C-alpha cells in the first residue's frame, strides 16, 4: 500500500469502517510511515475537538411550548371581504355546490334527515344572485357561513380530522385555497383545486351524517371506487357527491367521470 492509498483510507480507519483486509493492510503501512501516522493523529485530534458538541448537555424536553404553537389560531370574527378573484367559472362552480347539495338531498336516501330551510334559502338566493354578480354572491356566501380562509393544517386541527385533500391530488393538480364554512349543520371545508390547464373545481368535505338540502334536480346514483356516489350534470360539468367511510365529499365542476373516479380513488387513501 502506498501513501496515497493509505491517506484515502485514514478517515474510514479512524471510524472503524474498513474491511478487515484493508484495515490490516493499512495498519501495516502505518507501522512504517510516520507521515501517514501524523495524518491519522490529526483526524483523531479533530474528533477530540468535536467532543464538547458530542457531549453537550441536552436541553430538557419542553412539550408544552411546542403544543402551544401547534394549537390552532382562533378564527377572526370579521368575515373576509374580497376573498376570491373575479373568476366567473369558479364562482359558478361554487354556486353549483349548493345546487348539488339540494340535488343530493332529493336523489339520495338522505331524505328523512332534518332539513335546513335557512341553508336552502341562502342557496337559492346565492344561485339567483350569482349570475348577476358572482363576487357579491361569494361574499354573501362567506358572510352567511362566517367563511374563513384557512390552511389545511389549521383545518385539520379545527375539524379534528385530516381533510382528504391533504392526502394529495392527482399528478399536476394543486390546491389553491381552502375555506371553512360554519354551516348550521356542520363545519364544512371548501377547497378550491386547480388542474394543470388552470381550470378549477371545488371539493366540499364534511363529517358523515350531515344533513341534506332539498332539491328538485335529477341526478344519477352509482358507485365509485366502492363508495355510494351521486352525479349531477351542471352546465356541462359534473357535480359529484360521495359517501366515504368517515366523511362526505361534494366535488363541483369536475370535468368527467374519469376525473371524478381518479379524485375519489386518491381521496379514498385518506378515508
Amino acid at each position, binding site marked *: 500500500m502506498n501513501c496515497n492509498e493509505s491517506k*484515502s483510507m*485514514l*478517515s*474510514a480507519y479512524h*471510524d472503524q*469502517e474498513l474491511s478487515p483486509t484493508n484495515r490490516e493492510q493499512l495498519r501495516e503501512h502505518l507501522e512504517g510511515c510516520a507521515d501517514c501516522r*501524523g495524518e491519522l*493523529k*490529526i*483526524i483523531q*485530534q*479533530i*474528533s477530540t*475537538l*468535536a467532543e*464538547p*458538541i*458530542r457531549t*453537550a448537555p*441536552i*436541553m430538557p*424536553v*419542553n*412539550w408544552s*411550548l*411546542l*403544543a402551544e*404553537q*401547534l394549537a390552532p389560531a382562533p378564527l377572526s370574527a370579521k368575515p373576509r371581504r374580497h376573498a376570491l378573484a373575479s373568476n366567473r367559472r369558479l364562482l359558478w362552480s361554487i354556486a353549483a355546490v349548493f345546487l348539488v347539495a339540494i340535488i343530493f338531498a332529493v336523489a339520495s336516501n338522505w331524505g328523512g334527515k332534518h332539513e335546513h330551510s335557512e341553508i336552502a334559502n341562502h342557496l337559492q338566493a346565492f344561485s339567483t344572485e350569482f349570475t348577476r354578480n358572482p363576487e357579491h354572491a361569494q361574499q354573501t356566501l362567506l358572510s352567511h357561513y362566517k367563511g374563513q380562509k384557512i390552511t*389545511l*393544517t389549521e383545518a*385539520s*386541527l379545527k375539524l*379534528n*380530522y*385530516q381533510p382528504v385533500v*391533504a*392526502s*394529495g391530488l392527482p399528478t399536476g393538480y394543486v390546491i389553491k385555497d381552502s375555506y371553512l364554512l360554519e354551516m348550521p349543520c356542520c363545519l364544512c371545508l371548501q377547497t378550491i383545486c386547480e388542474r394543470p390547464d388552470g381550470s378549477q373545481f371545488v371539493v366540499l368535505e364534511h363529517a358523515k351524517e350531515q344533513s341534506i338540502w332539498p332539491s328538485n334536480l335529477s341526478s344519477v346514483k352509482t358507485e365509485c371506487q366502492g363508495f355510494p356516489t351521486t352525479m349531477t350534470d351542471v352546465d356541462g360539468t359534473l357535480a359529484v357527491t360521495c359517501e366515504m367511510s368517515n366523511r362526505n365529499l361534494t366535488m363541483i365542476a369536475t370535468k368527467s367521470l374519469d376525473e371524478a373516479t381518479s379524485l375519489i380513488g386518491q381521496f379514498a387513501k385518506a378515508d
Partner: protein
Amino acid sequence: METVAAENPEAIDHLLQRCLQLDSAAQRQLYEHFHDRCYRLVLGFVSPADAADVLQKSFLQLFQKLPQYRGESSFASWFYRLTVNECLQHLRKHRNKQFATLDYDPVDHTPGHEKMAEHRELLSIAMDRLEEDLRTIFVMREVQQHTYAEIADLLSINEGTVASRLSRARHDLKQSLLELGWEPRS
C-alpha cells in the same frame, strides 16, 4: 402511555397514524422520541443559544408537513433531512454573523483549558466554512456517532459516498483549522 420501540417501523407508523389524527398524546410521544437525537444534530450546526429555537421550528415543520410524508424513506430519514434543512436555513440567514474574527494571538501561553475553548471556537469557525453536505455528514458521524450505514440510510446515499465525503470534510476542516492558527499536537 404506550412506548415506541427504538426504530420499530411498525410502531413508528402506528404513532404517525395517530399523529395524523391529531392525537396530542401521540404527537407528544413522537416529539419525546426524537427530541434528544435531533437536539444533538442541531447542535452540530448552530450554537446552543440558537439550538432550542431551531429544534422547535424543526418539530413544527414535522407536524405541519406530516401529511406529506409518503413512506418512500424511513421516517427518521425524512425527519433528519427536514431538521438539517432547518439548520441550514438558519445558518444562511445568519451567515454574516456566524464568522467570528480572531482577535487573539494564536500563539499564546494561556492555561490548557482556555486553549481548549479556543480550539473549540476554531472548530466552530472551520465547520461554518464547510460545504453544507460535508458538514452534515461530519455532524452525523462525529456528533451523533452514526455508522456509515446509518448515515447512508438517513441521507439516501451509498456508504462509499459517506466515506469519501467524510474524508473530504476532515481534510477541509484540517486546512481551515491550520489557516486559523490551530497547532495540532505532534
